[in-house]
């Protein structure tokens, strides 16, 4: 990974999401989608960390409900 590419953080994140996190056997696609949605924006929300945590909790809840039915 060249320094030039790395120094552009959006490309750094792109490479992670398109290569590393695309492996569905190692990473939960829904979790990857939520992380991407909250942190890959050019200007993340100031509370993006908290919002991501809440979204992950809601995902777990939804799956639990689905599993209980």
């Amino acid at each position, binding site marked *: *990974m060249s*320094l*030039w590419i*790395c*120094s*552009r*953080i*959006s490309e*750094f*994140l792109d490479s*992670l999401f398109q290569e*590393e*996190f695309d492996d569905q056997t*190692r*990473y*939960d696609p*829904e*979790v*990857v989608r939520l*992380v991407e949605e*909250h*942190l890959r924006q*050019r200007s*993340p929300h100031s509370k*993006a*960390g*908290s919002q*991501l*945590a*809440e979204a*992950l*909790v809601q*995902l*777990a*809840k939804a*799956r*639990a*409900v689905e*599993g*209980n039915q």
Partner: protein
Amino acid sequence: MSWIVAKLSIQGINDVLDRVGDFELAQERSPRSIAIYAPNAPGKSGYADAIERLFSEGDSPAEERGIEPRVSITLINSESGESVQVPPLVKTGRTDDMLPELRPIVCAAPAHRILRQHDLRRFVVDMTPGEPQGQDAAELFRWSGLTRLEQVLKHLEETTSKLAGRDLSWEIVGRVQDIARHTNNAVTRYDERAVLDWCEAETERHLGKRLAIDSVEGMKKAIRTLKRLQGRIIVMSSATTGSYQAKLALEQLATGLIPPTRPEPCPERGRRGSRRDGQLQVCHTALSDAVAAERHTESLFTVAKNNVFQEVWDAAKVILESQITDECPVCRTPWKKTRAASQEAAVITITRSLDELTELAAARDDQQKATRRLNRAIRNLEKRLAQVSTEAKKLSLSVIETQATELAKAASTLGTTDRFPSQMQDECEALLTRCHELVAQRLQPALQSLPHMVAPVTTAQVEAAIEHFQALWDALIRLKELHREQEEYQKVRRSFDAMAEVIQERAAALVNDVVAALEGDVQSIYQTIHPTDAVPNIHIVPDTESRTLRMQVGFRSPDELAPPAGHLSESQMNTFGLALFISSVGLFNRQFPFLLLDDVFASYDADYRQRIVDLVAERLDGFQVFLTTHDWPFYSMLKDRLHDKGWLFEHIEEEE
């Protein structure tokens, strides 16, 4: 190269710049750099203020000085030919955002693009962590092009922290406590089968039959059954309460009269019986004790009469008849003529007689107590027999009722007589025998032949059972949900943690790469300006706690590092800052390689001019430079070196 500044117009700074604020900085799609000379004081720093205001958000030095410059700019993409034109910008307040047309261009080149003289030292000194310079430290991160990465890492940490704070165990504990409360502490953990077993036992207790409950869903069926049978339970309750209670009373009375046979006799059992004896046995024992006490008293009385009263009266008679001097002091009988024959023998006789009298008194007391016990036992027997009669009547056991009544009357008669125990012994034993026959031969068989009766329950008890079942159903369902949710939550968290770990590892590697490149570049630039000085080892250390970069220098070994301030001279510090700036724009701003140097070389001695001209010509060759200076020799040297390299040169004279 991507974006270049084609046209730039700046107005509203002050009178001098209004006159020369229009610049054509491109030829076709090729950028042109510009150097502007102006003596001190005409306000050429206003260029830097105006351009910084254009490319920044919120506060800028222009606002701080109360200046509101109007800037228009045209940008061209040197590769695609696309252009962006921004008309004279009017910012109305500190909260104005950057123009949306400029944002993607500026974000693609995140490092600082404007360098003032005072920035040189500030970049090096004020960024040292540990000082109250948090904002500046963040600025250095931004300057190094790592702001967004820092934000991403901060958000990841926030997410990790929030996820770690989510804990379902409290609610799980609360629900388990619900289970314990609604099973009367029979089940104190989350054990579905144990709760179902408890519910089965409860249905048996209330309904007289066991309902199989195989699952949590089965509890709903049990609740429906309980509700359906509730009415029948209540009817049955009122109908059977009297008979059930009468039977229960008779069973208790029978047991009280003749207890169930024990497998082994109690060796500690006293002669007067124990609490486990039935009332008939108590009466037997009391009778025997009373008769024995009576006979014992009679026996002692006879002995005392022979040994004391008669001897005394005989002795008195002898004393009165003899009138002898050497005599007993009481009866004045000479000792040799008394039956005792001597004073010593008389004393022994009198002592024994007194002991016998004491023993007699104790025996009489015992006899009275034994007699009272016997009377109490008989009255108690009479009372129980009367109860047997009453309860037998409720169950229509007429023979038992009649016999019990007769026996109660006989007991009453015995209890009120003044006869000695020995005088009523036969009669009493006959009564006890008849009582035994009544209980053993009639009452107990009759009770066994009665149909099995279920303890009647009240409406409140049934309602309470339904309430417990409902609460247990709620608790089990919720616990199942909670465990499922916790399981899913842990899966999600494991996946997120794995992602966060990868991002953090890659980010750390990226930071290390950037820092390594900066270190090498800075050292090289430093050496260009100070070729004859001892070149320090320059270290830029990422500080993960303060989220900044720590500058350190060392002149000897890598282990002896120190902050630059205090170890470098003023010009060395300036060079350090200049090198950091040039290195960072070279690394991060290639998509928009426009930079402004606002009189930054003024602090250097004349000896450095040529090296700085070389630095600008060689190191900034790929950049579009907007340079201002008040150093005429430097301006001239630069012009000589670069006038045929596409540079523009402007000369502003101070007005008279």
